[in-house]
């Protein structure tokens, strides 16, 4: 343990995975260096327009994360940097970093864009990386409008000064802040870190290499990432779908799937996300322009994740997207029109030619070239596909101890899986570095808060922002005007309000003039409000006595050609801000102690992993299982070793308490302070804990029909898997004796009753001819894809062939869901002679018996003919269903279930293992079906997210939250029914009350309260109405003298208005 020295972590790669890992670690007591190769963080997600399956705006989700990580006191972002080497051991690494010069001092740059405007290249000349070549940029540029750090960067490859040395360097003169610095040089420095998380992401496959589609030669052939930019409102065409060749709106768009993926000439594996991103792009294109007719050419439609099936259904039914199951052999350009001719064989087998206006290639995810170089420098191994090699049962562990890998660096995956892995990697680091938690982070001390004496004394700071505002708005007259407003005792102009000198000056003015409210009129509050709030807090003011007025983005920048009107508007905006400031009240933030223990519900694979991860991080954990046995979901042969290891680890772990045969009778409290009653045959026990992890699993559905249960030769994949289990060596299969209390004989499941007979036949007696039927019972009522069954079938088919290569195996399927590296299994099965027969959803196979001979009849969707197979064995893949116990848990915890009985996470993309209610997390098959490594990552992630709460000791509650006026509340229950966070309860007086810790300040209750009994702090009616009245007050109406009269008297609620 003495080796564990550094409570700091290097996260390499600033995409969504790296950002999530950095935030999780920084929030749980570790200092993070976030190292990014490019000039800004954000990664690929920043370039997306929308995200599947909800079609939410990608940037709207990502941008708050960028801002959060950008201003986190325990995250240092190092851009334009790459790793040179990594020395040392886990807990004590030395990482050498090479940082390229930016030629811009980011502490001075205010992203005003004057350098860009002044650059000698008067046209925007060079292809923009962010716009994937569709847009242009200058040698000096801002990567994208929401970039963090938000600062210009000079590209020495294209800058004429660096190329020829002959340049008037207009940019230097144009910059009012002296931020440009061409003397910057490359820096080499060392970081001391305890662990490393590697998240360099992926490279989109280079479509040029798939020559037959003509990308790079034909103007109107684009890649999926490029099409994202065309759809984006901030993209090169402002969100208009236009053809590059002539700028005209295309009507017919063809999307071609598997470009570079599932292709022996390129990448053998499936890129896992393209089917869905294309479906999304087709829908969004149609939404942008109703004239568009999208057609998608595909091999298998892999809609295997939560909500994916539904999106495809909507694409077909509501948006008229045409899906054609066919691999396009060639795209040729028609020279006159630049239209594209696509040749393909349709589903009936005849050759077709069709003309399209635009072709979009669904390029797959290739391994990142920089990631491969990084792997070499870090000394970690890659797998056969060029992605990071991971341990089978620890999907974020690299081949070097203390170095963790995450996201698309470990294989193709979508955003939520990346986020899950990021949180899992953070959890693994936490467990490793638990002894040095909190040794490198710092908390800030603030002076005691002054009690405002009632009468507002407002200070107004009007920013020039160099000439950004002052160049258009007459800022002097705005400040003079502010002085005349009621309550204002100080108003001045400042060149840069955000500069360090001014922040110091601001604090002095607050003290000298005894200001008790501060208004800053400058830019958007998005980036700087927190800085100003922090400043007034340093001066002893409550941070909520602050109001920011945006006279840059919402005034000077958009009205640059109407300076007089802009000045009038600025005055009016300031008048509104001051009116609100007059009504501001200090809001208190209280600390709530956290019970540093966890409750994990469900003792399957996920529950055990989550509990062990939390235990390793040093937190006491109660692992509660309804049945007598832990790990009963781990049935197949290849996980028996893992199961034994886990049972052993759980048994001896000093921080874990296992409760089998136990249910939860009651849970009360809130994040940090839950209190639960556990019920077992031994009696009831009350426990205190800070978090809850729901880790219930999903189970193989019990099929009906297909002679299942009637003939022992018809069994499920799971039962087959058991039958295939070789006689186990004692070490692997026997459960350690001390764990016997958790391993009382499980109830025999019904399908097990059949398995022994199959098993009894011995390996050779499973038969020669075997039929596997996929998607059994996947109907209207259970329409979702269970994700894992195809891979399971492939794995079992290969085992059967290994045992006896003469076997004839048929797999009857609807879509082959061998996503990611499972594609290798699919190929091996085909090479091994497994016959794959696709059937249509409408005509499922039929199993019957004729003189004890099993008969399977299937209509082959390609041949359009009925085939009859005489198998010795029929294996069904009936899909998985969530634990029925979820319904009870859903009621107990007040957390939502979807219509199929799976739990619904807080946010499908960025909060995949959180519930909306704080302090409650989820993992396991009951969140969504998954493979063992996927479930492990989710369980680690949930544990990591939970550890953030537990590691804090104290939680802050209050601030901008809703509160109920008991005089007005009529206990109508509207708020109680509406609150998405379960924060409202009926108190002992029979009135509604809001739990401060649970309230997230969304304001729904305040808006809907029929008695107007609820107000949201900082957004009270009086405050908002005061702003509106100032906005609409005609100029000639004289300002009322300020009288310090706060709210109307209680029980009266009178508000006279003319």
């Amino acid at each position: 343990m003495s080796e564990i020295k550094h409570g700091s972590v290097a996260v390499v790669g600033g995409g969504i995975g790296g950002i999530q890992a950095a935030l999780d670690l920084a929030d749980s007591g570790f200092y993070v260096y976030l190292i990014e190769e490019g000039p800004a963080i954000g990664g690929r997600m920043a370039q997306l327009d929308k995200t599947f399956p909800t079609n939410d705006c990608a940037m709207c989700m990502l941008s708050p994360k960028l801002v959060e990580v950008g201003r986190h006191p325990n995250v240092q972002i190092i851009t334009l940097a790459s790793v040179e080497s990594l020395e040392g051991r886990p807990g004590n690494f030395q990482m050498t970093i090479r940082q390229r010069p930016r030629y811009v001092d980011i502490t001075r740059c205010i992203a005003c864009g004057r350098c860009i405007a002044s650059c000698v290249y008067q046209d925007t000349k060079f292809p923009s990386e962010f716009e994937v070549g569709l847009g242009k940029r200058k040698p000096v540029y801002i990567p994208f409008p929401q970039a963090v750090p938000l600062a210009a960067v000079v590209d020495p490859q294209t800058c004429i000064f660096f190329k020829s040395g002959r340049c008037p360097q207009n940019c230097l003169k144009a910059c009012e802040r002296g931020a440009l610095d061409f003397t910057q040089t490359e820096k080499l420095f060392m970081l001391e870190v305890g662990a490393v998380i590697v998240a360099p992401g992926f490279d989109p496959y280079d479509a040029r290499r798939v020559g037959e589609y003509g990308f790079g030669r034909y103007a109107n052939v684009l890649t999926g990432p490029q099409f994202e930019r065309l759809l984006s409102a901030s993209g090169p065409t402002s969100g208009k779908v236009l053809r590059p060749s002539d700028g005209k709106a295309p009507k017919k768009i063809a999307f071609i799937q598997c470009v570079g993926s599932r292709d022996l000439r390129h990448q053998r594996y499936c890129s896992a996300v393209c089917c869905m991103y294309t479906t999304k792009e087709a829908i969004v294109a149609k939404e942008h322009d109703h004239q568009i007719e999208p057609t998608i050419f595909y091999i298998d439609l892999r809609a295997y994740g939560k909500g994916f099936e539904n999106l495809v259904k909507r694409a077909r039914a509501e948006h008229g997207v045409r899906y054609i199951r066919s691999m396009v052999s060639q795209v040729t350009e028609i020279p006159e029109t630049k239209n594209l001719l696509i040749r393909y064989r349709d589903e009936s087998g005849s050759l077709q030619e069709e003309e399209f206006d635009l072709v979009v290639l669904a390029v797959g995810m290739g391994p990142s070239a920089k990631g491969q170089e990084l792997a070499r420098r870090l000394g970690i191994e890659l797998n056969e596909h060029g992605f990071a090699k991971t341990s089978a049962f620890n999907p974020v562990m690299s081949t070097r101890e203390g170095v963790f890998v995450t996201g698309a660096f470990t294989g193709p995956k979508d955003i939520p899986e990346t986020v899950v892995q990021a949180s899992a990697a953070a959890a693994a680091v936490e467990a490793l570095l638990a002894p040095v938690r909190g040794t490198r982070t710092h908390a800030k001390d603030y002076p005691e808060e002054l009690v405002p004496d009632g009468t507002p004394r407002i200070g107004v700071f009007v920013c020039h922002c160099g000439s950004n505002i002052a160049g258009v708005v007459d800022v002097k007259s705005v400040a003079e005007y502010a002085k005349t407003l009621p309550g204002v005792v100080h108003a001045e102009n400042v060149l840069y309000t955000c500069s360090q000198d001014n922040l110091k000056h601001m604090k002095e003015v607050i003290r000298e003039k005894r200001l008790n409210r501060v208004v800053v009129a400058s830019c958007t509050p998005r980036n700087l409000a927190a800085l100003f709030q922090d400043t007034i807090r340093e001066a002893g003011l409550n941070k909520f006595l602050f109001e920011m007025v945006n006279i840059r983005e919402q005034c000077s920048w958009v009205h640059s050609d109407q300076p007089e009107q802009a000045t009038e508007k600025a005055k009016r905006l300031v008048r509104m801000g001051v009116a609100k400031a007059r009504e501001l009240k200090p809001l208190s933030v209280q600390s709530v102690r956290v019970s540093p223990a966890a409750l994990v519900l469900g003792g399957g694979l996920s529950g055990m992993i989550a509990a062990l991860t939390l235990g390793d991080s040093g937190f006491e954990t109660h692992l509660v299982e309804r049945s007598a046995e832990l790990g009963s979901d781990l049935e197949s042969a290849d996980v028996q070793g893992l199961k034994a290891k886990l049972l052993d680890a759980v048994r001896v772990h000093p921080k874990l308490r296992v409760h089998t045969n136990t249910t939860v009778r009651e849970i009360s409290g809130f994040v940090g302070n839950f209190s639960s009653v556990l019920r077992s045959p031994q009696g009831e026990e009350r426990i205190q804990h800070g978090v809850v992890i729901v880790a219930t699993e999903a189970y193989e559905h019990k099929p009906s029909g297909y002679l299942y249960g009637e003939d022992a030769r018809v069994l499920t994949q799971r039962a087959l898997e058991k039958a295939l289990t070789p006689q186990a060596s004692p070490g692997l299969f026997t459960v350690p004796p001390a764990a016997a209390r958790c391993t009382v004989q499980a109830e025999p499941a019904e399908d097990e009753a059949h398995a022994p007979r199959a098993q009894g036949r011995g390996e050779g007696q499973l038969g020669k001819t075997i039929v596997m039927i996929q998607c059994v019972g996947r109907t209207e009522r259970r329409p979702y894809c269970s994700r894992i069954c195809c891979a399971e079938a492939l794995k079992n088919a290969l085992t059967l062939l290994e045992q006896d290569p003469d076997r004839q195996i048929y797999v009857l399927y609807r879509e082959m869901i061998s996503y990611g590296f499972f594609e290798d299994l699919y190929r091996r099965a085909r090479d091994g002679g497994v016959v794959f027969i696709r059937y249509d959803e409408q005509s499922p196979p039929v199993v019957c018996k004729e003189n004890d001979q099993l008969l399977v009849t299937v209509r082959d969707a390609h041949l359009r003919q009925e085939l009859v197979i005489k198998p010795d064995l029929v294996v069904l893949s009936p899909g998985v269903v969530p634990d029925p116990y979820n319904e009870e848990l859903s009621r107990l915890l007040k957390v939502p279930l979807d219509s199929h009985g799976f739990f619904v996470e807080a946010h499908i993309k960025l909060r995949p293992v959180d519930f909306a209610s704080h302090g409650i997390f989820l993992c396991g098959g009951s969140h969504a079906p998954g493979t063992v490594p996927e479930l492990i990552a989710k369980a680690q992630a949930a544990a990591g997210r939970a550890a953030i709460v537990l590691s804090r000791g104290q939680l802050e509650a209050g601030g901008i939250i809703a509160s109920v006026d008991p005089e007005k509340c009529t206990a109508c229950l509207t708020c109680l029914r509406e609150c998405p966070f379960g924060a409202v309860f009926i108190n002992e007086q029979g009135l509604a009350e809001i739990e401060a810790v649970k309230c997230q300040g969304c304001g729904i209750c305040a808006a809907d309260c029929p008695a107007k009994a609820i107000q949201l702090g900082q957004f009270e009616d009086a405050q908002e109405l005061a702003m509106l009245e100032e906005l609409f007050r005609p100029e000639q109406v004289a300002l009322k003298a300020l009288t310090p009269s706060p709210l109307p008297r209680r029980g009266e609620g009178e508000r006279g208005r003319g």
Partner: protein
Amino acid sequence: MIVADQKPIEEILQMLEPYRKVLFLGCQSCVAVCMAGGEKEVGLLAAAVRLARKQQGRPIEITEGAVKRQCDDEFNEPWAQTIQQHEAVLSLACGVGVNKLSERFDVPILPALNTRFFGEVERQGVWAEVCAGCGNCILHLTGGICPIARCAKNLLNGPCGGVRADGTCEVSRNGPRPCAWVMIYERLGKLSQRQNIENIFAAKDWSSDRHGGPRKRVREDMLLET
């Protein structure tokens, strides 16, 4: 709880036609709970009326307020002076509140709501009539389901011939609704009280209902000396 609807804005504007200075007074009890006349509705309605009158070129001065329960003088009393300073009061209470204010004040009290029925909250935003206040309760005999309120014909010995094969009533205001007597029959089955259905109810004495004129209740022991 008393359930009410807000009158159409046109009707309210017509009522307010003669006045230039009006108090909009909500009630924070039943009608607040059924989202018809609480303080929030006062604010919304006042804003709408101000806009409409401004558009007509005849601006109106509105004072907004809400009292705990308009059916009690004591809650209304603090508003006495304000009420008298206005040409009229638009009451967002149920009819009881309007009557109460009218008894006390010599100012026109205008009803902003149509008072509908006693209701239960079926779910948020939906209220249903389940009791008619007939003054002579038989719910213990009908499995807790009232045939007076829930049968379109107030039948005591149902069902009638208007019940459809699927158990719904031929009278269908707001969409098909179950026959009250089918519901009673099923409910009695669950309670093992099916024998109740064989009871023949005698003709109902409606004198306890409002057909005997306005009703009044007196509790002698609680009367205060005056």
